[in-house]
């Protein structure tokens, strides 16, 4: 039976642990020794929406395991432009590859493709809904930095109301015992209340604040997301909030020595460049981990083992 990766909501704790273990295993293999693992397999990238990191990361992951990549990232060069339906596009291109990765502006497209296609489908972002490999790579990054994904104090900062990254990461971290959450956002961008309960309806340990400077000093992981201008009706309000949620190196003085700053990227102003050279910056390593996790995902969903 084919395996799809569509939503974090479909995964159990043991699924997450398996992905983490698989990523660690593939990272441990020297680069030269894994150049043939996916030889003969073709990854089809269907990017109906622009992407830098995710697309290149999947490509690098596939190529470094010896596989081939084809696809498109500009819909105007495809028959979709001529009015072809999404499902017809899926049924056509599935004949050319072994696995497909889809990014689309509409929510539910990856699920629809997965149900229609005989190929394994990986969701690389469906509108504001899900981006499961981002969550998996975030978890892998935390696992690598701390040797565990539980018993941690995690501060999520920025836009916690509209960010799909935050939803999925929060939900996943809540599967593991002992995690405490510090939710740092402007009042208008707080986490929706239903996200504060785990699968069994238990309320999780949350502290909500809008004081980023204080939160920085009191966590193991600081996960920053971008505050988007379009979420504010009033541009004055946006400017006010934006400046409060900018992290610079000076704010990191007094942070726990092992504390790591993560960000799904791209960043705009929310992390100043002077943070990059501090030992707390973890976001570029996070990018590298993304490629490793996607190697693990590609192998798992193609049914290939080390």
């Amino acid at each position, binding site marked *: 039976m084919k395996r799809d990766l569509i*939503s974090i909501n479909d995964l159990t704790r043991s699924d997450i642990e398996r992905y983490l273990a698989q990523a660690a295993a593939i990272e441990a293999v020297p680069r030269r020794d894994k150049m043939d693992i996916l030889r003969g397999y073709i990854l089809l990238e269907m990017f109906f929406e622009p992407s830098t990191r995710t697309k290149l990361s999947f490509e690098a992951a596939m190529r470094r395991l010896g596989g081939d990549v084809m696809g498109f990232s500009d819909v105007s060069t495809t028959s979709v432009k001529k009015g072809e339906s999404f499902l017809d596009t899926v049924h056509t291109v599935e004949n050319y590859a072994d696995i497909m990765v889809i990014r*689309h502006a509409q*929510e*539910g497209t990856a*699920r*629809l493709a997965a149900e229609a296609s005989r190929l394994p489908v990986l969701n690389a972002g469906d509108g504001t809904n899900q981006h499961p490999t981002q969550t998996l790579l975030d978890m892998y990054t935390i696992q690598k930095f701390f040797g565990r994904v539980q018993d941690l104090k995690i501060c999520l900062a920025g836009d916690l109301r509209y960010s799909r990254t935050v939803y999925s990461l929060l939900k996943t971290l809540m599967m593991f015992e002992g995690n405490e959450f510090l939710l740092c956002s402007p009042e208008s961008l707080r986490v929706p209340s*239903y996200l504060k309960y785990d699968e069994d309806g238990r309320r999780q340990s949350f502290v909500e604040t809008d004081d980023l400077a204080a939160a920085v000093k009191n966590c193991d992981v600081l996960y920053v997301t971008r505050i988007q201008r379009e979420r504010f009706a009033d541009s004055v309000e946006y400017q006010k909030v934006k400046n409060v949620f900018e992290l610079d190196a000076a704010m990191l003085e007094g942070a726990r020595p092992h504390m790591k700053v993560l960000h799904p990227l791209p960043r705009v102003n929310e992390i100043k460049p002077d943070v990059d050279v501090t030992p707390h910056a973890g976001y570029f390593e996070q990018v590298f981990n993304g490629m490793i996790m996607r190697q693990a995902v590609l192998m798992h969903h193609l049914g290939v083992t080390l």
Partner: protein
Amino acid sequence: MNQTHQHLYIPKIESGVVIDHIPAGLGPRIVEIIHAHPGLEKAMVSLGLNYGSTKQGRKDMVKVHDHRLPDTVLEQIALVSPGVTIKRVEGFEVTARIVLQPPHKIVGLGRCRNPNCVTNTEAAVTTRFMAVDNKALKFRCGFCERVFRLRDMEFVLPRSAWRKGCKR
């Protein structure tokens, strides 16, 4: 006006089904669902509106004479009005009584209210919604994963012949 008195407005039925505790205003919609079902188009139905109710304040009531209601009709009624009481009547006596529970899954009857959900642009997709919180009557779209309250959801239920073409 006491309850015994108001029952005079819809006489007891000898056999059939009584749908009670319908929130006021939903009675006509339920009659419409019943009449739209093949085989029930000509069923004799009594409809009572705005009865006094100690629990609900006001309620509607529907009596279907000499017919039973198939499961598909009950499923559709459960969407527009979960919690109504269904009583089977034989020989003027109530022989069975159930409280209609909200469904666990709604397939092919709902339209996703997220305008950016793929089900609203791909013509061939059958929608589905799964209950995520049965107490609060919340359902998650099987595609875009957005969660909606049952009372906010839109359903594409069959309409009876006499209402076809009318605006909702």
